[in-house]
């Protein structure tokens, strides 16, 4: 569906995107992840045809961004970061305008605006001017704008940034609803965002791709293991560590910190694929220690992200 080949973008000699390659299949939800200034927005802007690439090419279906720009824009719906829409226009007028520019027929136009107002929850705010709306509502208008012509590809730049938790859930629901028959590329620097919505994650750092894999597989890559943390009362550190190390599947036990209430906090590193929580429970049960906390910590994208984008 989308082929990016050797794509670069320079701004006055500053290299924002440095020879990146990736391809995206139909129906995938891909998250572009990276710290601020990594080149996510620049990549998306080139993908949508707003910025011409300095070198390299982007192919969407059979169209090349260099020669069939308008055809590509027809295939794509784009929501830039923080939804910069005309502030003085009414929501309805704005959607009507977008529908007209996108060439929707009269009848289809009204149906589509009605559908989108249901989907994005805009019914109550159709007669407000966009400048009066809160960030979350504006973002929803932006999503409706992006989905107007029912495009095959949706490109969303930081769709949930600056929103409160409830608004984030709403926007995510809309995206997930739309995702059923679309290819979606979204950028974010919030890792839980990518974990929650994306099938695949591309991590960009300083204009280069540092990781590109399934979200699941990326979280399981070698070197990153499960860690069980537990807190014990009335236990001595050495005795507890000896006892826990004897359990099958446990690689290492470390005292993580001394908590104020006198409990002993331990971090148990486990072998990949094993979950020794039950065994730990039984081991503790045989003693008179009191188990006050036990949980499994998966190494999440956060760890991988820090690992990959660390400044050396």
């Amino acid at each position, binding site marked *: 569906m989308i082929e990016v080949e050797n794509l670069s973008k320079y701004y006055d000699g500053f290299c924002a995107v440095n020879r990146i390659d990736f391809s995206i299949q139909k129906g995938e939800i891909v998250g572009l992840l990276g710290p601020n200034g990594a080149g996510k927005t620049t990549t998306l*802007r080139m993908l*949508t*045809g*707003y*910025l*011409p690439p300095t070198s390299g090419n982007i192919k969407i279906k059979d169209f090349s961004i260099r020669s069939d720009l*308008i055809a590509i*824009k*027809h295939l*794509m719906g*784009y929501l*830039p970061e*923080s939804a*910069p*829409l*005309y*502030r*003085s*226009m009414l929501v309805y*007028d704005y959607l009507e*305008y*977008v529908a*007209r*520019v*996108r*060439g929707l027929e009269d009848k289809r136009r009204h149906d589509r605006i009605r559908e989108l107002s249901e989907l994005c929850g805009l019914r109550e705010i159709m007669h407000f001017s966009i400048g009066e709306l809160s960030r979350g509502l504006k973002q929803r208008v932006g999503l409706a*704008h992006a989905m107007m012509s029912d495009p095959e590809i949706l490109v969303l730049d930081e769709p949930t940034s600056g929103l409160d938790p409830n608004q984030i859930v709403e926007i995510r629901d809309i995206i997930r609803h739309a995702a059923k028959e679309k290819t979606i590329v979204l950028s974010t620097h919030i890792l839980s965002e990518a974990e929650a919505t994306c099938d695949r994650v591309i991590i960009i750092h300083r204009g280069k791709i540092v990781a590109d894999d399934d979200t699941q597989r990326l979280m399981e890559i070698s070197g990153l293991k499960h860690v069980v943390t537990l807190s014990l009362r009335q236990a001595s550190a050495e005795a507890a560590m000896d006892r826990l190390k004897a359990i099958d599947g446990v690689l290492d036990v470390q005292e993580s910190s001394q908590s104020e209430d006198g409990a002993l906090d331990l971090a148990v590193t486990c072998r990949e694929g094993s979950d020794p929580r039950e065994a730990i429970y039984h081991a503790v049960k045989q003693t008179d220690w009191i188990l006050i906390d036990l949980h499994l910590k998966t190494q999440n994208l956060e760890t991988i992200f820090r690992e990959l984008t660390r400044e050396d």
Partner: protein
Amino acid sequence: MRPLASIVAKEVKDYFVSPIAYIVISVFLLVTGWIFFTTFFLFNHADMRSFFSLLPMAFSFVIPAVTMRLFSEELSVGSFEVLLTLPVSFSDIVVGKFLAAVLFVAATLAPTLAYPLVISFLGDLDWGPVVGGYAGALLLGAAFSAIGLFASALTRNQIIAFIVGALICFSMTVIDKMLFFFPDSLLGVIAYLGAGTHFDSIAKGVIDSRDILYFASFVFIGLYAATLTLQNRQ
């Protein structure tokens, strides 16, 4: 064609839903109406020559005020990014906004059609120069709109866009009245560049293809420069 028409419709509507249209039109009518009619009865001629001779000067300030927001606002809000990722070409955007500005100029001139009607009751009005005057006013308005559009594409600050636009339009208006500053060898060129002479000859009712070509080339240069400026921003 369709996106172009939608852009024109949207921009024209934008003018008239905000107070700017009514303010600009009121100021224009008040100033030109007052200057025109204070001397009209003294001259005691049933013609509109003194009204049309006011227009280049009035337009130098009114039109940049009308066009200043067309791109500057988009650039400062960031909606330009949204606009450019809709399936429209650069020329659709630039021409669309230009046509909207010209329509606005026409709307500004429309109420002044009352003047020739009133004058025709007072005396024997020759309609030829009036029709020529309005045609010339539209051509002049189009040329100034293209320049204002270019000024607006230069900056995200509307005030700077207005000042730059007004500066260029004003220079074009007065340049052929300042010929004594220029060396003899340049006189012909400078006199040709001034908007006043071309406008005056059309306003006399003489439709000369050279004058039309002059305004058409100014429109083209303005729009082309605006397009290049915007493309260069990327």
